[in-house]
C-alpha cells in the first residue's frame, strides 16, 4: 500500500507523515512535490501539516492553487482516501473538499499540547479501525484550529454524521474546558459527504510510537491500510 505525502512549500510535517507511514507502519510512502501533476499510483493521499506559503494570508489559502491539487481533487472524486492533517485540513477546507473554516484559536495563541479526541464515526477509511466513543490522546500544534461553519452547515454535517472527532476529556466527556481552541461543537475533524476525504487538526502521525508519549494516532493510519487491504 502506498501513501502519497504531498509537499507544499512550507509543509513541515511531511517528514513526520512519511516516517509514520513508512517506518512505523511499514508501508510504502512517497513525497509528491506540489508542482507535480501525478500521484504516482498512490492508494492514500496525505496533505501534511505545516505552514504552506508561510500561512501569511490565510492558512491553506495559497496551497489550494498548487498544480497537484487538481489531481488530488480527481482522486477524491473517484473515491480515493484523502486525509488532511492540521495545515492539510486547512488546505482541504480552502479547496472546498471539506466544509467549514478554521478561525484563530479563541485565546489567539498558538497551542501545542496533547489533547483527547473522541472518535464519533467509524465508517470512513481513517476511522474504521477504531471504536465509536474511543478516546485518543493526540498532540495539537496550531494557531488557527477553531472550527467554524454556518449553523445550517453544522446542522447538515452533524445530520450526515460527518463529524469524526470531537475534543473531549480523558474520559470522553465533551465540555468547554476540554475544547482547546473554541471549535464549534468541539469539532476536531470532519469528513466529506462521500466519507473518503477526512480532515482533522490533531496530529495522529505524531502519536504513533509510545516513546513519543502516545501511540494512539496509529489507528488513524492503520485504518487506511485496513480499509484498502479488505
Amino acid at each position: 500500500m502506498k501513501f502519497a505525502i504531498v509537499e507544499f512549500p512550507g509543509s513541515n510535517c511531511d517528514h513526520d507523515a512519511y516516517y509514520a507511514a513508512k517506518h512505523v507502519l511499514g508501508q510504502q510512502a512517497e513525497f509528491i512535490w506540489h508542482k507535480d501533476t501525478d500521484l504516482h499510483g498512490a492508494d492514500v493521499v496525505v496533505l501534511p501539516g505545516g505552514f504552506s506559503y508561510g500561512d501569511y494570508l490565510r492558512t491553506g489559502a495559497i496551497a489550494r492553487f498548487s498544480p497537484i491539487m487538481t489531481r488530488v481533487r480527481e482522486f477524491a472524486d473517484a473515491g480515493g482516501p484523502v486525509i488532511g492533517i492540521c495545515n492539510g485540513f486547512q488546505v482541504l477546507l480552502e479547496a472546498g473538499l471539506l466544509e467549514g473554516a478554521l478561525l484563530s484559536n479563541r485565546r489567539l495563541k498558538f497551542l501545542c499540547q496533547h489533547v483527547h479526541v473522541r472518535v464519533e464515526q467509524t465508517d470512513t477509511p481513517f476511522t474504521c479501525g477504531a471504536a465509536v466513543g474511543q478516546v485518543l490522546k493526540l498532540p495539537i500544534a496550531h494557531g488557527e484550529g477553531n472550527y467554524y461553519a454556518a449553523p445550517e452547515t453544522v446542522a447538515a454535517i452533524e445530520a450526515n454524521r460527518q463529524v469524526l472527532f470531537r475534543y473531549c476529556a480523558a474520559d470522553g466527556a465533551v465540555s468547554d474546558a476540554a475544547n482547546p481552541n473554541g471549535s464549534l461543537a468541539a469539532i476536531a475533524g470532519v469528513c466529506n459527504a462521500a466519507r473518503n476525504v477526512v480532515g482533522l487538526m490533531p496530529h495522529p502521525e505524531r502519536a504513533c510510537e509510545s516513546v513519543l508519549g502516545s501511540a494512539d494516532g496509529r489507528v488513524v493510519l492503520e485504518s487506511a491500510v485496513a480499509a484498502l487491504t479488505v
Partner: protein
Amino acid sequence: MSIDQTTIDEHGLNADEYQRLLEILGREPTMTELGIFSVMWSEHCSYKSSRLHLRRLPTEGPRVVQGPGENAGAVDIGDGLTAVFKIESHNHPSFIEPYQGAATGVGGIIRDIFTMGARPIALLNSLRFGTLDDPATRRLVDGVVAGIAGYGNSIGIPTLGGEIAFEPSYAGNPLVNVFCLGVAKADQLAKGVASGAGNPVYYVGAKTGRDGIHGATMASAEFDEHSAEKRPAVQVGDPFMEKLLLEACLEVMQTGALVGIQDMGAAGLTCSTSEMGARGDVGIEIDVSLVPQRETGMTPYEIMLSESQERMLLVARQGREAEVEQVFEKWDLHAVRIGEVRDDGRLRIRDHDEVVAEIPNRQLADRAPLYNRSTERPAYLAQAQQLDVAALAAPAALSGTWLDLLRAPVIASKRWVYRQYDHMVRTNTVVLPGLGAGVVRVKGTGRALAFSVDGNGRYCYLDPAEGGRLAVAEAARNVACAGAVPIGATNCLNFGNPERPEIMWQFAQAVDGIAEACRALGIPITGGNVSLYNETDGQAIYPTPVLGVVGLIDDATRVLTRVFPAVGLEIVLLGDAAGELGGSEYLTLAHGLVGGRPAAVDLDRERALQTLLVDVARDGLIGSAHDCAEGGFAVTLAECCVESGGVGARVELSGPGGPDDRFLLVRALFGEAPSRVVVSALPGTRDRLLARARALSVPATVIGHTGGERLAISVAGVGVADIGLVEAEQAWANGLTRYFEAAVA
C-alpha cells in the same frame, strides 16, 4: 569625497582604528570601505574586547569535529553523525521590536546550523526580563515569546525548552539568547570557506532592503534616551523564505557542487564575503548592482551593510552552476551569480564597472583591533557579598514560603511559554518541555541527544568566576539528570560595557570560571557568542553567561525526567543536605535582598555526581532525577511531584540541626547549592544505588517515600513544612500564567 571626523565617529572607529585602516588601504577610504571596516571591526563582528579572553576556553576533545571559528561547532555522536549546535544573542533587536527581534534571532541561529550542512532538529531559548509587575515588561515577554514561536513553529523546528528569569537588572535591557541544534553526517559538514579562483559566487534568498543597516554597530553600543531615534529600519523575519532556503541549501549540498556557504547575518554581505574569502585566503569580487534589491536607489554602501534576513552566500564549483541553479529553481528561489573568487586576496566591490571598495582581505581580518582592556574588581562586590544572616528578620512560616517560592515566576511552570512553541514537530521529542533537559531521539540510531541552557545572573553578579563555574555545572547536571553524558558546550556571554574596567573584570572572571569548569568536567566549548554593551543609561545588566550543554544518551528509551513515576518509591538525595542563602531565590523573595555569595561548586564532586547519574540511569536503577536549583531542596521536591498525576512525597531530613534552628531549616529547605539531585529509586534498587554512590564518593541519603496527597518535610521526627499537592500544583501552575492570561490575553 573626503571623509570628515564626524563621519568617522558615526562609524564607531576610534583614532587608532582609523589610522590602521589608512595603513591597510594606503589612502583614504571610500564611504563603502569605511562602512565595511566599521562593521567588521565592530565589537559584534571582531570580538575585539573579548577575543583575548575567549582563548582561555578549552575547545578540544576527542569528540570535537568542529571547534570555534565556523558558523557552528560540531561533536561526534557516533554512526558517522555529528551534533551541530550554537547559541546566539538577539538582545538589542528584541528590545526595540520584541516580536521581530526575537523571530529574526531564531532565524539567524537556524541559518548558522544549516549552513554547516546540518538538519536543525531542536531549538532552546534563554530569556531575561525585568519584573512582571511592569506592563511594559509583560508586553516585551509576550512579544518575544510570540516571535520565537512564530518563527520556529512556521519553519518546523521544535522549541524544546530553555529558561526564563525576571530581575530588575534586565528591565532596560532584556536578554534573548537562542540555541539551535542540528544533525549532520560527519563527512558532509559544509564550511564557510571560499576557494578556487574563477569559482562563481551566488546570492540566494530574500531581496536586500535597507533593513538594520548598522545593526552590527548598534549591537555594540549602549542604549540611552536617544536610542529610540536611532532605530534603524527593523528587520522583519520571513520564516517561509527561510524554510525554502533551509531545504534548498541542504539539497544543494548533496550535489557536491558547492565549495562553501555562509549565511548573511550581522553585517550581511560584508561579513559573508570577507569572512569566506579570509578563511580560504582568497579574494572575492562582486558587483553590487547584481544583488537583488527590494528598494530602489540603494547605494553600494547600503547594499553591503544591509542586514536583510534570510539570505545566503554560496561559492559553487565552476562548471557545475546548472546543478546549483536547478535546485534553487525547484524551491522557487533564484540563485543569482554576483561575482567570483579571485586569487589576489582582495575584497573587491564593484557597482557595474566602478570599483567602490577594494580591501586586502586578510588584513581586514587579521589586523582587526584586539584589546586587552583593563580590568578592575568592582567596588560593589565587597558590600554585596556580605550577608549578615543574624540581621535578617525571622523566617516566616515555612509552608507558606514554600508555596510563595513555587508561585515565583522564575520557578513556576513555564507552560504559558512553551505551549506556544511547537515542541513535537519532526517526531523526535522524547521529553516534552518543562520536564527537565530537552531530549530528542536521533532517528535511525537508537540514541538520543539532551540539551539544556542555564545561567544565573544573580550568582554571577555576586561572584562572576563562581557564577561561570556554576552555569557550566548546572547545564551539564541538567543533561546528566536526563541520563546523558555531556559531550560539548556552547556559550553566550551577556555583559555590560567592556570599556568599563569593572565590567571587563566580570567578563574575565566569568570566562575563567567557565574554562575551569569545562576542563574539570571534560566538556569542550565548540562555539558561542558574546553580547556586550548590555546597558541602559549606564546601568549594566547582571553579568550573565548562559551555557548550552549537549549530552548523548545511548538508549533513547532510558531517558529520565524530573517527575516521580510512581507511588511507594524511595526518594534519595544525592549531595549535601543543605544549601546557602547567598544569592538565593529565598533571600530575594522573603527578605528582598540580593547578597552573599553563591555556594561554591566542588568540580570533582560534580563530575562524580554526573557520572553516577548517567550510570544509574543507563542501568535502570532510578525512575526520575531532578537537580536542586533555584528555590533549593523543597522546591525541587515539589517539582518532582507536580504533573506526576498525583504522586506526593513524605521526607525526613536528618542533617541540619534541630527543628527549632530557624535559619538552618531555611538553608535545608530553600538554600541553594550545586551538586545536589533528588532521585527516586526503582523498587529493589536502593542498595545498588547507594553502593554506586559510595564508590564514587557521592553523598547519598534515603530521605523518604513517594506517595500521598501531601508534600511533607520533617526534621528529626518533627514536621517542619507540609503542603497539599493540589495546592502546590496550583501555585506552581499559575505563578507565571497569572501575569498574562487575564491581562494581555
